[in-house]
């Protein structure tokens, strides 16, 4: 077993109203960043876990996302490659 660190990005499902993202987008435009088209605000979660290898660790975190970390109705998730912690 080795120790791995895996980062997870969770974002609002595309097409669903994202009022937080819209508020940040509007604030950026107010600041003069007029080129900004869209902003989405999500969560960044870092999981440290023991696993046999990186693939096993990534599979486990994918399972965690499906069961708890992300809401399958409203959110999408994307996991980064496992790195040795």
């Amino acid at each position: 077993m080795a120790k791995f660190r895996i980062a997870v990005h969770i974002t609002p499902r595309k097409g669903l109203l994202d009022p937080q993202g819209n508020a940040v987008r509007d604030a950026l435009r107010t600041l003069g960043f007029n080129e900004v088209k869209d902003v989405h605000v999500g969560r960044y979660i870092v999981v440290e876990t023991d696993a046999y290898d990186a693939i096993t660790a990534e599979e486990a975190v994918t399972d965690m996302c499906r069961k708890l970390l992300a809401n399958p109705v409203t959110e999408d998730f994307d996991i980064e490659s496992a790195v040795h912690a």
Partner: protein
Amino acid sequence: MKFGIVTFPGSNCDYDAFHAITDVLGEEAVYLWHKDHDLQDSDVVILPGGFSYGDYLRAGAIARFSPIMEEVIGHAKSGGPVLGICNGFQIACEAGLLPGALMRNSHLQFVSAEVRIRVENADTMFTNLYDRGDILRIPVAHGDGRYVAPAQVLEELEAEGRVIFRYADAGGNISADANPNGSERNIAGIINEGGNVLGMMPHPERASSLLLGSSDGVGMFESILARVAA
């Protein structure tokens, strides 16, 4: 009839529900601790409002894995009545007892106000003492109350009469102005396929006597009593 009211860490409407059941309805109520595995022979389970586990991750996401929820889910699956109010609605959705999810209010503000909801289906164990089209004055208090679900699920809910309450104005019109959180189709409360699990964002237990501003919520508890006792 015995009502079991689940207390999660961060629940804050469990006492209001207890008051409505015991003092107003005159029925028996017990608090069910989130770490227990025992519903204490409750006939009806109430998942009360509050901020269980600080709304960490998502509202209701952690509470859904509390030990007591295994029993609550078992109770629901065997047809037992479950009423999820506010945070309880969020927990019921996270637990898969109800479809869809509750997201951040579209205006991003916490809303604490008395709203009006229209009874869309009075043929349920929770609403049988109302009439379809009745307008109830019931308070809401939430930051994450915007009901969303995939289009296909919304169509199913509509077709099967499972949208139980909709936010409306005093005249009973379903308008954007009457919608306090941006919920799809002004949905304020839904029921599961079996008709025994109801989730709603408004707080009927806080509208249980005129002293509190409205007694329009009492009919829900009396409906349960009338149906379950029968």
